[in-house]
Every structure is written in structure tokens, then in C-alpha cells.
């Protein structure tokens, strides 16, 4: 009779643990977000090797056809396979998203660190620039750049990157300033550590998790910005496919072929919801405070 007793004790202990500790990598938002994003990423990667039809392939006999075994997502008014377009569009979205976030971080992180580390004068100057860029609509900035340099992927990436970099710089400055006022930075300075070493040894390790979450959210913003620019004809120029341009082209036939609007819209939504959930999940996984509590709970 003793065996069931032991079992009973063991099962009582498990639910005792705080809910937060059991989450971590298994938090639902992290898992769902990662799954959604991986699905889109897989679509983009497969398109590098294989797609149902060629990009230029048209099927004049099946214009505006609904989903069928031949055309999984139907065709547009020129008879182009929509699933092919979606796959190639995913590639564009992922590439522009990643590249814009990279641009935003290359500009924003050093600027934010500079503002936090330098004196009051430099900080005010950088904050001023950041505020102006944040107030200035990214789309308007992109239009200006496109007018000057012509529409191209590089211009779209730069425009989105610069627009997003302001938010990155602001977050970097705020997080870094918080670290700079900590006692352990003062303690490091009392040991003779220079400003650069303090940045590398103390500030960056204490803020990178915040920045990584911001990168996930910025990726979502960049994907929407790319779709918007392409919708307006200012993003990636044809023939490179883009979800935004698919939406724009399908607009005139929305009453006869609603799926042509629905699917690219859904693709954008899935990607953005995916990275936002992933960002939330990452925050739970990476936040040092939560992590410490988790570790403390495990001991």
C-alpha cells in the first residue's frame, strides 16, 4: 500500500511550482510565434529550390481561377499562379525584413549608446534627431528616397531601416542609461575601467535581450512597411514578387476573385503576428529578472 502513497506525494509537488518557471522556452506565445514564422520562412526557403510554376509563367486559359489542384491558391487576371507568387513574396518579405532590421541596428545601437555614454550636450543632440526621425513617417521618408534614387530593393531597405533605427536608438539609449546609473558600473569605474570597456563588459550584456525582443518587433514593422511600399509601387520593383504588389494588383478584381486579396493579406498578417508572439516569448525567456527567479525557483 505504500507505493501509491509515494506517487501521490510526487504529483502534489509539481503544481506547486510557480507558473512562470515552467514556461521559458515552452511558453505558448514563443512556440506559436516560432511556428508561424518558421512556416513563412520555410515557404521562402523552398522557393529558392522549387516553386509550382515559374515566376513569369502565365496560364491564359485559367485567369482568375479559384484554388484547384493545378493552382493551389488560384490565379490572377493574367493567369499567374498565386501560390508561386506567395512563395516568392515570402522570400522578398523575409529578405527585406532581415536587411532593414540589420540596417536599423547598425545605425540605431551605436547612436543610442553614444547618447547614453556621452555628455548631456551630445545626448540632447541625438535625442533631438531621434525624435525628428520618429515623428517623420517612414512611408514619407521612403517616398522621398524613391523620388531621388528611384524604386529599388536597396532604397526600400534603407528607408525602412532608417525609419526603424530611430526606435532602436531610443530603446538602446533608455536601456543603456539605466545600466550606466547602476552601482556596478560605478564599481567598475572605481577599478579604473574605461568607458569603452564598460560598454562592452557591462552595458551590452545587460541590454542585448531587450534589443533582441525589439529586433523581433522591428522585423514585423519592416514587413508591413515593405508591403505598404510595394502596394504604393515604391517598394521592390517588378518583376520581383511582393505581397504588397499582389494586394494592389488584385484590388480591381476583388469582387470576382476575393482569394487573391485574402491570401497575401493573410501572409502579411501571419508573419507579423508570428514575430510579435515570438518577441513576447523571447522576452519571457531572456528577461534576466525572470530568468533569475526561475533559476532561484529550481534550486
Amino acid at each position, binding site marked *: 500500500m505504500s507505493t501509491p502513497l509515494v506517487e501521490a506525494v510526487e504529483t502534489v509537488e509539481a503544481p506547486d511550482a510557480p507558473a512562470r518557471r515552467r514556461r521559458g522556452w515552452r511558453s505558448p506565445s514563443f512556440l506559436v510565434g516560432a511556428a508561424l514564422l518558421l512556416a513563412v520562412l520555410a515557404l521562402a526557403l523552398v522557393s529558392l529550390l522549387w516553386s509550382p510554376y515559374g515566376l513569369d509563367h502565365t496560364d491564359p486559359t485559367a485567369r482568375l481561377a479559384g484554388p484547384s489542384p493545378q493552382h493551389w491558391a488560384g490565379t490572377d487576371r493574367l493567369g499567374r499562379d498565386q501560390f508561386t507568387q506567395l512563395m516568392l513574396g515570402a522570400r522578398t518579405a523575409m529578405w527585406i525584413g532581415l536587411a532593414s532590421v540589420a540596417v536599423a541596428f547598425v545605425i540605431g545601437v551605436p547612436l543610442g549608446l553614444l547618447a547614453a555614454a556621452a555628455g548631456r550636450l551630445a545626448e540632447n543632440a541625438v535625442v533631438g534627431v531621434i525624435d525628428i526621425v520618429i515623428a517623420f513617417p517612414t512611408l514619407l521618408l521612403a517616398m522621398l528616397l524613391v523620388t531621388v534614387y528611384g524604386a529599388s530593393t536597396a532604397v526600400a531597405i534603407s528607408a525602412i531601416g532608417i525609419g526603424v533605427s530611430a526606435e532602436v536608438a531610443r530603446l538602446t539609449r533608455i536601456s543603456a542609461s539605466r545600466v550606466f546609473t547602476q*552601482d*556596478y558600473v560605478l*564599481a567598475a569605474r572605481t577599478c*579604473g575601467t574605461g568607458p569603452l570597456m564598460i560598454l562592452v563588459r557591462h552595458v551590452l*550584456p545587460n541590454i542585448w535581450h531587450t534589443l533582441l525582443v525589439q529586433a523581433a518587433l522591428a522585423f514585423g514593422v519592416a514587413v508591413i512597411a515593405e508591403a505598404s511600399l510595394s502596394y504604393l509601387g515604391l517598394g521592390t520593383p517588378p518583376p520581383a514578387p511582393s505581397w504588397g504588389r499582389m494586394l494592389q494588383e488584385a484590388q480591381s478584381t476583388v469582387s470576382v476573385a476575393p482569394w487573391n486579396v485574402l491570401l497575401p493579406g493573410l501572409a502579411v498578417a501571419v508573419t507579423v503576428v508570428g514575430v510579435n508572439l515570438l518577441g513576447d516569448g523571447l522576452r519571457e525567456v531572456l528577461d*534576466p529578472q525572470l530568468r533569475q527567479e526561475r533559476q532561484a525557483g529550481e534550486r
Partner: protein
Amino acid sequence: MTVLETTGLTITLDGQPLVRDVSLSLAARDRVGLIGESGSGKSLTALALLGLLPPGMRTSGRILIDGEDHLGAPDRRWRRVRGRTVSIVFQEPLTALDPLMPVGRQIAGPLRLHQGLNRSDAERRAIEWCDRVHLPDPARLVRALPHELSGGQRQRVALAMALACRPRVLIADEPTTALDVTVQAQILTLLDELIEETGVGLLFISHDLPVVAGLARHLLVMRTGRLVESGPVDDVLRRPRSGYARQLVASAAQVTRLARPSVHGEYR
């Protein structure tokens, strides 16, 4: 030989003097206690001696380190003496350590900086220092993060970090105030031991007279930014000249009387 000397140190913020005309000098093996109530300018004086006052504060007077005036010196020159000639331990051992860095690397930081040790040599020295401050299982402990240590252990780490480069003056800014009384006694014993061992000159800052009196030989009393009394500990305790020092001694004596179990037989 005098390592650290300051004469006429005055600190002002927006024209308001916070510390006025403080003079003190420290040589190796000196044990100076600086006592005063909170807000009297003790900690500001300590920070000024390391050139680390918050921006906006102005200083005048002289701060001589090894005979060279460092007041108003560029940060580059200050950085050469910080940790190497003059070190400091702060009150709060939790916030004074980087929460995300293993404590061994934090002790090794100044060693790598000032003595150019490589990673493994510095880590070996960090383990030695953990041993010298009597931390248990040093080889394993150097990989622990600050939150995995108790308050007393953290303060031991902070002491190891401050003494790692063998400075000749250690400023201890209320190093035991945030600790339990029992842990406080252990840290004071350790501090005493380390001073004897390394010959470092000590400037011990506190508001707690019994704590200071136990460790220091010379006492400075500070009030509202001014030194009001200075002398050997015994003299100040027996014959306090300033009104404030008299108050301090009287209240400390009262606390001790209340805390001490009665020896005169009332309860026997």
C-alpha cells in the same frame, strides 16, 4: 609615506557647498575612521577622492595621490590610479556587482586591466582571492552569478575585487551597513585581517561609532560637510571636544548599555 592626501577639499553643487574644507591624509597601514550622520558628505568625499563625483558638482582644493595633484585631472589619469592605488568598497553588495557576470570575471576585471593578465591567469588569481576572503569552494564559486551568493559572500567578492590589484589605500564606504549584525562582525574581522596582511591604508566610512571605533585608530568626525573633530580614537571617545562628537559618544554609550546584559546584579 603618504599615499593619499587632500587639503581644503570643497565640493559645491550649483554654488551650494556640500563638503567644506576637508583635509585628511592616508599612508599605508593607516586606519582612519570617518564618521558622520547621513547627508553629512562622507560618501561624496569618498567619491571625490576617486574623481568620480556625479556630473555638475565642482571641487576645489587639492587631492594628492603619490604626491601628484589629481583634482581636475583628465579621466585617463584618474583611471590609472583607480583600483591600482586607491580602491573602494560600497555599502550595497548586491547592486555593486554586475548581475549577469560570473563573480570570478568581476574580480579578474581589474587584474586584466591593470596588470595585463590573460584570461586564465586572471581567473587563477580570482580563485586565489576568493580563497583569501574565505569564500567556500572558490573554484566553483567564481562561476556563480551574484544572485546565487548571500549578502555577506557578495561583500567578500566586492572586497576581493577592490583589493585584487593590491591598492595602497582602501576606502570602505559603509561596507557593513546593509548586512545582518552577525555577518557584519564577520566582514569586519575579515577586513581587519586583510589590512594586516596586505598593509593597505584604510579609510573607513560609517555612521556607526562602535563599528568604526573597533577598526580605526584615528577618527574624523564630519557634520554638515565639515570636519568637526579629528584625533586618535581613544581621545575622541574619552574626551570629545565638539558638541556633535559628545552626542555621538553619549548615544553610542547608551545603546551599548542597553544592549549589554546587566553585570551589576539587578537580575541575579
